[in-house]
């Protein structure tokens, strides 16, 4: 059996460590070590997106990523986006637009949509399809997911405007 090695990384903002075997993938390690059940191995080939994780701020397929390689990295999962009490704007938008059915692909979809909107705050349908084309939904909630990404973009723009106004007000007041 392969040797375990201890890796240290940040998980959803907190420093953690875990002993992993070299051939363990990131999905396995995050579930085994930290019960990060939003990260799911489905196709096992990086095609369906159920295992989406951010490593150093970039979305990767956890099922094709060796856990040992996140040593020293910043790792984020859907658990880090929002909570039941405080949903992220993208999560809210997915609920409002009913962008899921069975929900198995949903955290991955939301991770990709969140990253898309960080890179492109106002995507077109085409741009959404391009960015999300590596995420599959067997329930085929695709039209609702596209609508949810647009809705989330609106929410994020609106909150940015509110923030900007608040900043302005603060500046004036200050």
């Amino acid at each position, binding site marked *: *059996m392969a040797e375990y090695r201890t890796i240290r990384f940040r998980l959803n903002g907190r420093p953690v460590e875990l002993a992993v075997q070299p051939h363990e993938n990131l999905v396995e390690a995050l*579930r085994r070590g930290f019960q990060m059940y939003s990260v799911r191995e*489905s196709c096992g080939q990086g095609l369906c997106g159920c295992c989406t994780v951010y490593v150093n701020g970039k979305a990767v397929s956890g099922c094709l990523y060796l856990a040992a390689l996140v040593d020293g990295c910043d790792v984020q999962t859907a658990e880090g986006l929002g909570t039941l009490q405080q949903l992220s704007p993208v999560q809210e938008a997915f609920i409002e637009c*009913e962008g899921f059915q069975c*929900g198995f692909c*949903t955290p991955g979809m939301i991770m990709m949509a969140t990253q898309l909107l960080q890179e492109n705050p106002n995507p077109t349908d085409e741009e959404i*399809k391009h960015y*999300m084309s590596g995420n599959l939904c067997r*329930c085929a909630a695709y*039209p609702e997911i596209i609508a949810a990404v647009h809705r989330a973009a609106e929410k994020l723009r609106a909150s940015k405007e509110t923030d900007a106004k608040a900043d302005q007000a603060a500046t004036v007041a200050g």
Partner: protein
Amino acid sequence: MSKVMEPGVQSAAPSGQVGRPVKRLESAAKVTGRAEYIHNLELPGMLRAKVVRSTVAHARIRGIDTSAAKALPGVYDVITAEDILKVIPDPYYGPAFHDQPILAIDKVRHVGEPVAVVLATDVHVADQATDLVEVEYEELEPVFHEVEAYKSQTAIVHDVIRPAGTFADLKSLQPRNKTNVAMEYHLRNGDVDAAFAKADYVFEHTFRSQQVNHLPLEPTVTVAQLTDTGNLLIHTSSQSPSFVRIEVARLLGWPENKVRVRTAYLGGGFGAKLYIKLEALVAALALITQRPVRLSLTMEEQFYTITRHAATVTIRTGVTKDGRIVARDCKTWWNGGAYADIGPRVTQKSGFTAAGPYDIEAVSLDSYAVYTNLPPAGALRGFGIPQLVWAYESQADIIARELGMDPLEFRRKNILRNGRPHATGTILEDAGTVEVLEELARKMNWDQPFDRGSGTIRRGRGIAIGVKAAVSPTTSVAFVNLYSDGSCGVYCGTVDMGQGSDTAMAQIAADVLGLRAEDVRIIHPDTEVTPYDMATLGSRSTFHMGNAVRLAAEDAKQKIVAMCAEQTGFDPAALVVRDGGVATPDGSFFTFGAILAKRHGMQAGNVLGVGSYFPYYEKPNPETGMSEHITPYWMVGGTGVEVEVDMETGKVHITRLVTVGDCGKAINPGIVRRQLSGASFMQMGFTLFEEMVFDEGQVVNASMADYKIPGFWDLPDINEVSIVEVPHRNGPFGAKGIGETGSLGLSPAVANAIYDAIGVRIYETPLTPEKVLKALREKQGQGWEDA
């Protein structure tokens, strides 16, 4: 007239919760990734199982050598049929036939059949050890195609056929030993020969549908453990927990109360997670090892576990000059794979609808469930109906065009209307056949001119309509519990696998009890807690479980009203249930909690409502295959498409997709819409490109890299869903099932549109660009040769 076994299920006017666009109750759990799936379940001390699978399609097992695998460090044990037989002496299971061994005994019948299991705490070690198990085979002649298998006298998949007797409705259908015919169903309605003699034209065509896979994204998974008293607790991603309990108990010779089966949310099911899949094996492993055992399939293994029937349909239709269908004769061969699973039920339940939603004087139907050396086929969203609609709706267009009739007019002329007998003899009632067809015509602007283009890209449009009979007989039971504070829990065995049943059931209970759907809690299937339900399949839950929940809520309501009446002295008939309490004629209002508190002198007690629903059914006459009560309700779905066909590549692009479904009454309009559109897109994959490709029984594309399913880029440019509501007299608030309705018409609608665009008819799905281009070139007299 339909007969109803239970009182009080006639459709009632909703009070505000039914018909409300409630967001799924589990929305926040799903978007945060917290929703519970059995996929997430790990138990302390658990062993992980990996399956050694047959590499050949048909063979005798000469020997299994597990020594090298057992010697690999970290391997706990390697289990073969020999070990299983020690705990389960007759280890054959199946819903229709007891034909499937838990692990192969003496013989393997398909590539991928489980032959042995490796157990280890580290799944990678178990996986590695599977390669070290040596199995020696003596190969036998295999048979793969359903029509060849039907005829074959040399390649026989099962020496002895073993009916299960589970389903009363199948008892009249007998297997034929020494053949591959597991079961056959025949219907004879009217004098078919005489009717054909009257016809001006007779058309005969053969259509084929390919094997496809459900591919739920949550891979099928089962975890089993022994309880403190040695009973079994099985956690499983199952659509049919009640069946799993009954079947595992039967295998073990135990009473049902020693087997507990629970599920959670399912990451998709579509029919892949029905009956026994991994449960019998994992239960046996837990018994053998006395430790918790988990088996979770890989995507590749899903292809070898259950598939959708390939089918060959030969359909002969007699029509008069003016376009009346007068006679139809339809023969269907279902490729059931190596084990029957639910194939015999598909053969009968789908078989009897093979004449389509048409009013035909004389009908003859023959339907054969055939064993082959392919992975077993079972139910997949539509239970065989899409394969039949593919045939009869493709042929409808062929006939209409031959007669020079508009395809819509041809359908209008022949459509089966309410009050008229279906081919089975059951009178059609409360079915939206006409309404769906007319809505389809309207949405498609069928009476408007259509530009078919010229040059490289040609355009076409097509429609199709199908009916499905709800599977019968089946039973659902539900409890509604008002807790001591008046809050409400609904106990039902319906599995929410994404179809939104939790939300719909909460809406039904809430509507009856004057609550908000959001305040009703649904208790997930657990055979120790929730009462019996036949299964979550065949679009049956809204109708059957919906009725059971409604009856249970009515029962609870009656009881709390009686309690309040006793406390206040008012006549129960004068009391009104609303807003989680009871209003009395004097203007007072008592919450459910207050009524219970008054009764018990403190916050205590329950009000338990029970509902049980079992629609009336008459099994088909063994001679004629006919029945006056063949189904509790009909589902009607229509699809219209507009396509673009690339004349140089054969590629088909759906530019517009219209899905129309009759749901009786939309309990939750948003969810109904999503179910219709989701089924339609899934069927689009089965229509255009999904296909399990076999080489000597081996699936050559058993991965998502090579078996492609529809993604974002495959969406039609325009996607429209239209809900038709023709209320059913026995449906809860008029509702019928809708989960499969969107699947019915899509394949032939696309083929009809391709014909409309380029004048080429394809008889076999999927409609790949190669098939389309090849047919087009053949029509132009220019084929190509393979290099």
